[in-house]
């Protein structure tokens, strides 16, 4: 569905681009109130995707294109248990995330000991020196298994376009997904931002049957594709879905979009990923 809208948008923009011109203008916008921003990610599969990134908002025309990192905070993630209808967080399962690489990449908090577990709840706590704090909870859903993955070449086999098709079983329960694709070099510590294509979707159209996915924009012969398929909770989905709109905002029909944060005390999200990873090289054996 989204792709349809994108296609219409692309064609419409093509039309506009044929008749439009542009020029640089000067705009004065008032100073804004600074807010904290948190990007917290945990999963059950890879420590590369367990991190908390703290930053803050910048005035729009602030002459900096870097992350406005916030260092020196105390950051904790606690694993909990669900007992009946209650969720219990025990301090003995609390892990501190520390900004080990602050001199190189400030604002990134990591914990070498932390491992996420599927079907477990987690609590995020951040305490800043100035007294501000951030809290949030998430849950790592059970990951899906990619049942099949096929690819084909068009129109010839060498130096040409490659399309792939995969599917997994979407169960009867309500599922939400984030899918990230990256071709090329396998990263050691990259973060989700190293992905090259991002998809956020739920099962409102296809539920309780094999869930297909295939790419419309082709890859090239011999490309290595890394597929990160993650199940996420509903409020995390709502955040990433709104993020998709907010990050891609612009144009004449755009409306200002604010993300639907699932944490208090900051803009952003604490997301637990039930992660599945597959890699494939697009060439004939």
């Amino acid at each position: 569905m989204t792709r349809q809208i994108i296609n219409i948008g692309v064609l419409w923009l093509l039309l506009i681009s044929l008749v439009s011109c542009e020029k640089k203008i000067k705009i004065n916008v008032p100073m804004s109130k600074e807010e904290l921003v948190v990007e917290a990610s945990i999963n059950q599969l890879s420590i590369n995707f367990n991190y908390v990134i703290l930053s803050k908002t910048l005035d729009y025309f602030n002459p900096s294109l870097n992350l406005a990192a916030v260092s020196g905070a105390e950051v904790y993630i606690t694993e909990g248990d669900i007992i009946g209808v209650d969720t219990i967080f025990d301090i003995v399962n609390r892990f501190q995330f520390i900004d080990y690489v602050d001199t190189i990449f400030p604002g990134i908090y990591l914990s070498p000991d932390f491992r996420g577990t599927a079907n477990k709840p987690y609590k995020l706590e951040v305490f800043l020196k100035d007294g501000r704090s951030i809290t949030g909870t998430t849950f790592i859903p059970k990951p899906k298994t990619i049942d099949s993955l096929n690819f084909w070449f068009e129109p010839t086999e060498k130096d040409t376009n490659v399309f792939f098709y995969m599917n997994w079983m979407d169960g009867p329960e309500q599922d939400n997904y984030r899918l990230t694709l990256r071709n090329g070099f396998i990263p050691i510590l990259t973060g989700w931002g190293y992905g090259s294509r991002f998809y956020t979707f739920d099962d409102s159209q296809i539920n309780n049957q094999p869930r297909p996915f295939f790419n419309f924009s082709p890859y090239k012969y011999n490309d290595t594709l890394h597929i990160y398929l993650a199940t996420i909770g509903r409020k995390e989905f709502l955040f990433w879905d709104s993020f998709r709109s907010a990050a891609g905002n612009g144009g004449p029909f755009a409306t200002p979009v604010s993300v639907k944060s699932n944490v208090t005390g900051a803009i952003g999200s604490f997301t637990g990923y039930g992660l599945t990873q597959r890699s494939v090289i697009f060439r004939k054996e």
Partner: protein
Amino acid sequence: MHLKPQYIIVILLFIYGGLTHEIYGQNISIYGYVQDSINGETLIGATVKNKESTVGTVTNNYGYFSLSVPSNTLQIICSYVGYQSKTIDIKKSKLKGLQIALVPQNREVKEVVINSERLDKNVRSTEMSRIEMSGEKLKSLPVIFGEPDVLKAITLMPGIKSGGEASTGFYVRGGGPDQNLILMDEAVVYNPSHLFGFLSVFNSDAVKGIEVIKGGMPANYGGRLSSILNVSMREGNNQNFKYSGGIGLISSRLTAEGPIEKGKSSFLISGRRTYIDVLAKPFIPEDLSGNSYYFYDLNLKLNFILGQKDRLFVSGYFGRDILDFKSPTNRAVNFNLGWGNSTATLRWNHVFNPKLFSNTSVVFNRYELFNDFKFGSGGFSVRSGLVDWNLKSDFTWFAHEKHMVKYGFNYTFHTFTPGILSGNVGRTSINEEINKQFAHEYALYFLDEWNVNQRWSLNYGLRAVAFQLVGPYTQQNFDNNTGLPDGGSKQYTAGQTIAFYPRLEPRFNANYLINEVSSIKASYTQTYQFLHLATTSGAQFPLDLWVPSSRLIKPQMARQYAIGYFRNLKQNTYETSAEIYYKPMRNQIEFKPGANLFFNQNLENEMIFGEGLSYGLELFLRKKEGKFNGWVGYTWSRTTRQFDELNNGKAYFYRYDRTHDFSLLLSYQISKKWASNFVFVYGTGNATTLPDSRYAYRFGIDPQTGEPLFVFVDRYSDVNSYRMPAYHRADVSFTYLSKQTKKFESSWNFSIYNIYNRANPYFIYFLPDVQTQTVKAYMVYLFPILPSVQWNFKF
């Protein structure tokens, strides 16, 4: 039941008006039709007067009139701007019903006709906030791409604002684009745009005239809050076969018309098609071949005079926009999008007696969007749309020389199809349908145009409306926090009421004639709107959906108070007016920021409801006749919206709020062969929301370069607190009559749009500049100076 004062006033006026008309003396009724002597087209708004007094009337939308005159009246005179006046001897005529054929004046006089109104109508009639334009005038205005356009033309009128150059949406006194009722021969046009809003669906060859009512709406109109745009299509020449057309830069038109039975019946068929796809073909790279866009439309009208008392009209419209897209990287991927309106109208005019005229119409109307997407092993299609069946009957009772009463009813059955999705991806099939919705819409009205005395005249009425959303329908319950069904639902059987909104709409217009050339008018209008356009953009887009009022979505409501001073100068050569209006609006609808409107089972959850307010002053000066004519209009206005969920609950400027709006239209007949038009428009920049801060998100590190990776996300505070640069431009057009004989006529229209090449803002976007480590703002503008040419012919 407690009646509000406005209802009591209307009822008392009707009782009093009915009682008083008995006291007048014995009169006779003169009635009939007024038409063009050359082609038999009826003339709307022609004046018919008792020659010995000032008492007169004007022909209605079907060219019919009925005039009550003293029994000793000898002559009446019929006149229409652009035609030779005609005197009819009453004693000699049999008074069975007149067919008055007016002879057009020669072309150079006709060319400068700016409208077809009675000369002192501006001062004498109770109407205010109403403007008309002939189809002929429409074609002579400066245009983009050589394509005359109704919706672009009306935005030159004061109080009507354009949505922008790439939009046919228009905004009347603070209302949204969906708050305008657009009628084409009485059929509602739900999406009036072609080419993603660049052009409208109205083919200028088939347009007889347009009328815009932006306030003081009489009780026979309803259904929208802000305005009525009434587009009348031509009936066709019932005397001779004629062909006409035009060739523009992006499209051509061809019209054929003629008698089926001479003088008794006629047909008109008019078609238009773009050739953007054909023209662009040589320039499209090979890998993009197969992509095309085009639109076409077809108007058909049949007109039968069945006798003195009956006339029958059949009219239809069929238009489509088609977009074909083939992926340049994967030829198996094919995308096809189409949308369009289809309407069919059957109208029956019946004269019961000289004093009672009726029109009964059956209207079918469909707007549909279809979208097919194919990709090798799979594909899916999406269908959405809206179908209306409408029956309406309007009666005009020329009760007395001082009273003209109109009454009637209007019933519409709506079927809303928000979305049907079907297809397959590999072995997985997709079949989903958003529940269809069904609704009945009823209206019953009466109004009385009452000339109380030499100074006072009133037009008052009451419109009773009701909207009933009915089953079959399954109302799913959704959790507002997650947007997911909570498992609960309520089943409505066929015909069972889901929501019912009965409402009363009092209407009141008064005119106090200060003297022969000046008057003061006042109006009060209350309107409700039961259909709402689901769009997050300011313009209408093919994917936008019309949604009905429901249990959650209450009807939109507006009240409008207006008062104006009207004065004509130099024997009605110049019209001037000053109007002040105040228009509060309730239950206005907006969508939550980032709302997903496409294929959303829970669209209601994406809506928020608030209030609106618009007020302003409109000044207007128009020279109606002479070689040099035109108008100048200025509007000062303020329009705000207030929603609890937006802007921290504070009122904010509506996107199309324009403090100052100025328009100038000058027409000059240079010679017998040459005519020219000049247009200048100025408007305060649109209010828009700009980000005031940003943050980096979706962090990653490129392991090969060590560079951090993230995207910037904009953060917004105040809604619409920034003003775009002002919009202004000047256009000029010249029409050259290259040949005019009895059998053939051709003319060229040369236009220059935006003659001083103003860069008018379309939208603003921002780009980070890594070199300078700054964010830069860019303004996109659409049309620089743009010459165009169009050739029109008739034979």
